[in-house]
Structure formats: structure tokens, C-alpha cells
């Protein structure tokens, strides 16, 4: 664990440094408060600090105040070293943001025990942050596939549509549905069905660019948002994704299960300022058309016919699956 010690008096600094190095700390020693604040404020700075109260440039409480002002920085546990012993001094020190204080000259065992208290607090903070991040992830992602959940993918699509309208670019909506998924569950069981959904998610993610969005729309339906996609390339991109999904059977515990997916494709710039919900209805209609056309294919929603454009159908025969 890194620890910063700040003391302008060289004997104290030397004593602290040796004591803490012997206790296994990685010590950064500085000789004034300004240097201490400069080292502690960056996000990757030490998270444990021993600060002399009286120092040139900036005193210990001043350092505490500067560090506490920083947002987004992990908690820094700060102990003031002081020969001040009045209640008012202690209160002022703690009010500045210090976590503890130690009277000089310090006893080595007491010093180490108080730092262990600090480490416990930092450890607790780490666990709280980890729990918060887990909860944040769970709130935004689908529990089975770890893709964006329905609420988030729709929110992302809504934002992307606004952006593409403003920039006069195209957002491509791809609504995909696994073919014959019910029979996968009926034949191989729901655990195998879960494996198929997870692998489908992985294949979808590996088929798009890092800045595209993939979410689980519901059941075996997935929503893919291709951001800033050239309209002329949209179908080829969708075909590529469709091929990747069905390229190889999904290996589950008991069987290798061939899969395929049907897609409805919609290019936002062809639909003016139609609300997102209506765009999704048209994409869904194109998906329905793909199912009707034999599945494992892509159908493009066309505003001219307000139904799937039959010329855009791309069908991948089952025998082409590897």
C-alpha cells in the first residue's frame, strides 16, 4: 500500500519513512503541504496520508481541505500529525477533513495501529464501490446475456436517432429473432436454451463495431443499433451479422445446436422524423416478413410500400451453415 508522508522536519520524516517501510508500506515522502496536495489530488495518488500540521506553503488542514474538494477521487484516509493538543485544535483538524490525528512524538505501535484502521476504512470503501458498480451493471444489463437490457437499448436508440437526425446521418435498426427457439427449449431443455441465448449475444457483439449497440429486446429477440452507418452498407452489414450467427452450431453440454436468426432492417434517414416506437413497429414488420420468407434472412423495411421490401431479402439456406 502506498502512503504519503508530509513533514518539513527531516528527523520526523526520516523516522516516519523508516518505520513505515519496515511495516511494509511503499512510502512517498515530501517536505511541504503544497507538494503533498499535488501528490494526493490526482486520481491515482496514494490513498493513505500522514500530514504534519505545521508545514510551509500549505499546512496539514489545508492539504485535507484541498483533497476533500476533489470529486471522483477514491477516498483518501488522512491522519494529521500534531504537537497541538487542545480540543479546539483537534476539532479544527478534523473539521478540515482529516480522519484522525496523532500526537507527536508518535509511538510506532500506535502509528501502525491507526494506519490499520485507515486500511480497514479504505477496504470498506472498495467493497462498497464494487457493490455499487455491480448494482449499476445489473440495472442496465440483461442478467442472462449481459447485453444492454430493453430499457437501456431503447434509450440508446432514442439518443442515437436524435443525433443522426441532427447530423443528417443514418442509424440502422436491426431487429433480430432466433429461429425456432421454442423447439430448442422443447428438445434440449431450458439450460441449453440459455446457452444458445448467451452464445447468440456473444456472436452479435463480435459482429458489430465497438461503438454500435446490442441489447436483448425480449425473449429470443435482440435489437442491434448500427450507429452512423452508411445506407449503402447497411444490408451488407446485416448479412454479415446474419452469417456470423448461423456460422457454426452452438455447443452446449449435451448437443451441438444449429441456430439461425431472422432480421428486420430499417434505415432511419428514409423515415423522416417518425417516432422511435413507430420505427420499431416497421422494423418488426420487416422481421415478420423475414420469418414468412423462410427465416435465416434479412428483410428491409421500406417506407414506399410500408412493408418489407421483397427485393432486399437475403436468404441463407440451411445447407450453407457450417
Amino acid at each position, binding site marked *: 500500500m502506498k502512503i504519503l508522508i508530509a513533514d*518539513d*522536519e527531516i*528527523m*520526523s520524516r*526520516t523516522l516516519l519513512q*523508516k518505520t513505515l517501510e*519496515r511495516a511494509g508500506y511503499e512510502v512517498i515522502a515530501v517536505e511541504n503541504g503544497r507538494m503533498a496536495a499535488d501528490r494526493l489530488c490526482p486520481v491515482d495518488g496514494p490513498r493513505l496520508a500522514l500530514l504534519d500540521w505545521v508545514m510551509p506553503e500549505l499546512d496539514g488542514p489545508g492539504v485535507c481541505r484541498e483533497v476533500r474538494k476533489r470529486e471522483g477521487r477514491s477516498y483518501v484516509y488522512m491522519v494529521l500529525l500534531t504537537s497541538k493538543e487542545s480540543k479546539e485544535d483537534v476539532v479544527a483538524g478534523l473539521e478540515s477533513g482529516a480522519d484522525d490525528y496523532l500526537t*507527536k*512524538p508518535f509511538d*510506532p505501535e500506535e502509528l501502525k495501529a491507526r494506519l490499520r484502521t485507515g486500511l480497514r476504512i479504505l477496504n470498506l470503501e472498495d467493497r462498497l464501490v464494487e457493490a455499487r458498480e455491480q448494482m449499476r451493471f445489473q440495472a442496465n444489463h440483461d442478467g442472462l446475456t449481459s447485453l444492454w437490457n430493453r430499457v437501456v437499448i431503447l434509450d440508446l436508440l432514442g439518443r442515437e436517432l436524435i443525433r443522426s437526425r441532427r447530423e443528417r446521418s443514418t442509424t440502422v435498426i436491426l431487429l433480430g429473432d432466433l429461429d425456432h427457439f421454442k423447439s430448442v427449449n422443447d428438445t434440449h431443455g431450458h439450460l441449453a436454451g440459455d446457452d444458445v441465448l448467451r452464445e447468440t449475444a456473444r456472436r452479435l457483439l463480435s459482429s458489430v463495431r465497438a461503438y454500435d449497440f446490442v441489447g436483448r429486446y425480449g425473449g429470443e429477440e435482440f435489437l442491434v443499433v448500427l450507429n452512423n452507418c452508411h445506407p449503402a452498407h447497411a444490408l451488407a452489414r446485416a448479412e454479415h451479422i446474419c452469417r456470423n450467427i448461423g456460422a457454426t452450431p452452438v455447443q452446449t453440454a449435451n448437443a451441438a445446436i444449429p441456430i439461425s436468426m431472422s432480421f428486420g432492417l430499417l434505415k432511419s434517414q428514409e423515415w423522416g422524423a417518425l417516432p422511435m416506437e413507430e420505427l420499431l413497429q416497421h422494423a418488426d414488420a420487416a422481421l415478420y416478413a423475414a420469418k414468412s420468407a423462410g427465416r435465416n434472412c434479412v428483410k428491409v423495411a421500406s417506407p414506399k410500400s410500408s412493408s418489407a421490401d421483397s427485393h432486399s431479402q437475403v436468404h441463407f439456406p440451411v445447407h450453407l451453415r457450417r
Partner: protein
Amino acid sequence: MSSAIIDMAELLARVEDDRGLMRDLLLIFKEEFPQHLQALRHAVNSADGEKVAAEAHALKGMLSNLAAHPAAAAAARLEQLGRDREASQFPEAFTSFEEISKELLLQLDVCMAKVSG
């Protein structure tokens, strides 16, 4: 009397029986002390309460680390007088501090000889 000048047991506990570290601290003190003493003398002669308090504070810290309690107490008194701007009492308090410091420096040489073995 000289044994009270530095509490050796306390000093050894502070350095966790690390005689190398103790030797380093004594050397640092011998090097640093004359400059601080000179600065304190100058502040006393100038009747500059703020500087007296600052220099006496620094000396008090060094002396406390060495478990040199009588000298640390004399420095603490000077620090307080400096804070209170009691300039009329600076000379007497400084003289007292200097006398204790002389004994301390003699004692330090004995300590150094012991530590160096």
C-alpha cells in the same frame, strides 16, 4: 543528571531497536541543530515573536523525536512565549534553553559512541 537529558529507553522504542536508524537520527540532529539554534538566537535578539515561535516549534519537534524531554520542554516554553509575543521573557528563556542544549550535545556524543559500538 545527564541520564535524564535523553530517555534512551524511549528513544530505542521509537526506532524499534534499530540502532542504524538511531545513529542516522543523531547525525541529522547534530547537523541541523546549530542552524536552528542560530536562527532562534537571531529571532530572540530581534524580539520577533512569530519567528521565535516557528524556530522553537521546529526544535521542539526534533528534540521530542530524540526523547530529549528537558530540552523539548524548554523549546516548548519559548514557542509559547513567541506566540504570546512575550518578548521581555525571550532572553531568559533562550539562555535556559541554550544551557540545556549544551548538556544535550555532550550527551549526544556519548550516545553516538555507544551506537557506533
